[in-house]
């Protein structure tokens, strides 16, 4: 069962970082669709153009949870511009790769982060 996942994926799945919601989040990114089995909500807290805190809630497979966890770690502390440049491949690479069929999950995590930043930018206009 776990053959397709790297140790890093399993680590992030078993011990996900930054789980939960930020009550007074500055931006929320909601991506995915329960119909296809993945739903991701990314919460961000922004201070001085930097991501002070990033949290997530995810309904989905092992890869969906691991990529959510990874993207929060990658994004924390980055400027909004830097965070916008995190791609799905970056997330997969940081996890030492994902099975080909799971690549859409890592796509989702980066999308979720970008959606949260866009939400923040919209609100702060």
């Amino acid at each position, binding site marked *: *069962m*776990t053959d397709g*996942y790297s140790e890093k994926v*399993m680590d992030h*799945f*078993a011990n*996900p970082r930054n*789980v*939960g919601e930020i009550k007074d989040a500055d931006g929320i990114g*909601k991506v995915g669709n*329960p*119909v*296809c*089995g*993945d*739903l*991701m*909500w990314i919460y961000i807290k922004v201070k001085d153009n930097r991501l002070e805190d990033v949290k*997530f*809630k*995810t*309904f*989905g*497979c*092992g*890869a*969906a*949870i691991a990529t959510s966890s990874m993207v929060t770690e990658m994004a924390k502390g980055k400027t909004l511009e830097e965070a916008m440049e995190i791609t799905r491949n970056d997330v997969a690479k940081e996890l030492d790769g994902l099975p080909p*069929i799971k690549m*859409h999950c890592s796509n989702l995590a980066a999308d979720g982060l970008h959606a949260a930043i866009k939400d923040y930018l919209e609100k702060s206009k």
Partner: protein
Amino acid sequence: MDNSATTAVDPGVTEAMLPYFSENFGNPSSLYSIGRQAKRAIEEARQKVADLIGAKKEEIIFTGSGTESDNLAIKGTAYRNRKKGDHIITSSIEHHAVLHTCKYLESQGFKVTYLPVNKEGLVNPVDVEKAITPETILITIMHANNEIGTIQPIEEIGKIANEKNIIFHTDAVQTIGKLPINADTLGVSLLSMSAHKIYGPKGVGALYIRKGTVIESQMHGGGHERNIRSGTENVPGIVGFGKAAELAKVHLPEEEKLANLRNSLIKGIFEIKESYLNGHPTKRLPGNANFRFSYVEGESLILSLDMKGVAASTGSACSSTSLTPSHVLIAIGLRPEEAHGSLRLTLGRENTQEEVDHVVSILPDIVNKLRMMSPLAR
């Protein structure tokens, strides 16, 4: 706890098979003594498989798998009866070996009716009767479902099929050795079986063909297996299937104990809030339990169980190569997000009360942890 996927080969089965890899390597078609020995071994195995389903030895054809048996039964009937008609009736919850064969036949010009099931996964015999047209040449309905374990009213459907003189096939891969089966009582003309679900080897299956039922061969060659399935026989595999069938018959009374064990699993897991049983409460395979838990996804459940040494399966899209949720769970009316949260635990001979208690003790924390992470949970 994934005994519906496959089972470990019984040591008695391995022992029976071993000589047929070495000293008894003969080709059953050869006329000299080691060939005759192999031939005899096959015929003994045929008798044992026949005995398991109350059939005659001459009514059993060995194949390479349950899937091949389904293909042979369905295509063999369709092509044989093409001049009589072009309509096939099946259900929407069949195994892919049946569903995809029916889809293929549709591409070849046959017409197929896929009957719905109720929320417990039952086919209504009245629906079968209503679907019959003068063109109907085959009804194929599985004996019990591999995912949710629901046992179909095969005898009732058999009566209808026989009254109308239509060939009736059932995929009994999940039921042989688990339910008492008599092919005559069931009223089937064709019945598919597989060895590896009953502690036999992989790579061998069988098709029961009721005396008088004629189907078209799907494998042409040297005329093996009464010219229905050519190809040199898998002698060790067939011998193993025979032994597994013999043992399955001996162990059959223990299936009731297995059902009790399964019931204690269900009772334990129902302690988890918002957990549900998929399938029928009573008309289900003795070892089968299929649950769903609101707000969590099946693959993450399975990974979590796997980390604690428990093997299970799910109908979630995330664990399939097609990325679509199980057609069976959708057919019983579940929403996709509910289907994604399914967990199938199937018990076998080897499972113990301690193992059931272990699963019951670890699952609540696993479900809670995933729910804490889920945006769907409130």
